[in-house]
């Protein structure tokens, strides 16, 4: 158990086997996600404290437009994603909370990606929210490209999970239409190769700052318990969801 003052009355929460005092002052949001698994309720996860919002400055339309074009160069003109050397994820229709949290995660080192670290580190909180709102409102068709023959198996895993290996139904958190909610991402229309890459490398890319456990911890056991072919199937299914 983490050390703390004896009179500290902040509730203890467990994230992936580690106990933490729930931060009070910096806490923005507590999202309880209860999954009726065979074993246990997963965890109560809190989002890492928001970066100090001292940089609340106005963003001119012109500056915003230039930054949007910067994002679209790699993520597609309608945010539909693009396949370069790396698959670059769809941003269109993404949850603003997820979008904003990931941008901060790149800067804070909770999520490791050197390209996005440099792309995101100069963004003000106002700009982050403006970009999140812009991309949330886009709705292009999925980029596609996933093997369609895997989609049926993917649908089953997405809707029912895999009880034998403790894989919960994806839809329990990501929603029946894979639109996500708050800090839980939309998966509908996501690039299947991006999904595969992320889930296979989950523990190497996400939740990389032990001092700031974040919502990515929820996904860790599931990413671990899914086989590569099961991930490919789920990715193929959601890749065609509109």
């Amino acid at each position: 158990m983490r050390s703390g003052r004896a009179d500290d009355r902040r509730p203890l929460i467990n994230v992936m086997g580690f106990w933490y005092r729930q931060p009070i002052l910096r806490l923005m949001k507590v999202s309880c996600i209860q999954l009726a698994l065979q074993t246990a309720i997963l965890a109560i996860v809190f989002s890492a404290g928001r970066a100090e919002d001292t940089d609340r400055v106005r963003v001119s339309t012109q500056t915003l437009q230039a930054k949007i074009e910067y994002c679209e160069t790699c993520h597609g003109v309608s945010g539909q994603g693009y396949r370069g050397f790396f698959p670059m994820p769809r941003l269109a229709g993404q949850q603003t909370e997820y979008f904003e949290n990931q941008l901060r995660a790149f800067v804070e080192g909770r999520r490791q990606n050197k390209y996005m670290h440099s792309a995101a580190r100069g963004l003000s909180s106002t700009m982050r929210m403006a970009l999140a709102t812009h991309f949330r409102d886009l709705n292009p068709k999925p980029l596609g490209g996933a093997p369609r023959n895997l989609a049926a198996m993917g649908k089953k895993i997405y809707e029912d999970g895999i009880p034998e290996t403790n894989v919960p139904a994806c839809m329990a958190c990501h929603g029946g239409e894979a639109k996500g909610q708050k800090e839980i991402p939309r998966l509908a229309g996501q690039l299947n190769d991006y999904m595969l890459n992320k889930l296979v490398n989950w523990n190497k890319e996400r939740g990389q700052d032990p001092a700031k456990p974040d919502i990515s911890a929820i996904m860790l056991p599931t990413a671990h318990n899914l086989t590569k072919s099961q991930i490919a199937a789920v990715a193929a299914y959601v890749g065609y969801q509109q």
Partner: protein
Amino acid sequence: MIKFVTSKIAVLALVASAVPSLAGNMETVSIKNCTWCHGTSAQGYEPAPRLAGQRQQYTVNQLLSFRKHTRDNPFSKQYMWGAAANLSPNTARELAIYLSALPPKAANDGDNQLAAIGRTLYEEGNPDSNTVSCAVCHGPNAEGIRQIPRLGGLSYYYLKRKLTQWGEGYHAAAERPMPRIAGKLSPNEIEALASYLSFVK
């Protein structure tokens, strides 16, 4: 000249044994024509770029774009429009397979002093001026993938000319991101990028 052509056919024969689809109808004529400008081992020769080790799909796309006249800079017009005019898609494909299998050598002809700046620009772009990273599409080692070309080790002169020409409006019909990205690069940034890339192995 005869010796020159014969040695080329010998190289082709070696490769043909490794790539079965090349063995039959691959005209020695097209290989011979390429080597005149691109060098006997396809390592490039001013003003023609290195073709050895280039991504197959990229090479095919370029050959077809010369035929369609969408790749339209002065050297393309002068040399490649004619050279590619009679290439069938099938021959273009076989040629591209052959070239992609040749080992590329780095040109090493850029300015060493600028390589570090070029590398940072290549890897991170310049978020302040909204210039994206090159590496996310062209690969961490500029190796390219699918239709996205290998840039590592291409000649400084070729890279500089190409990057400048994008900004001048040539090849405007190319796949979306490049005309816009290169058009935003300053002459100094182009110098640095072309220098860095010429040393990448």
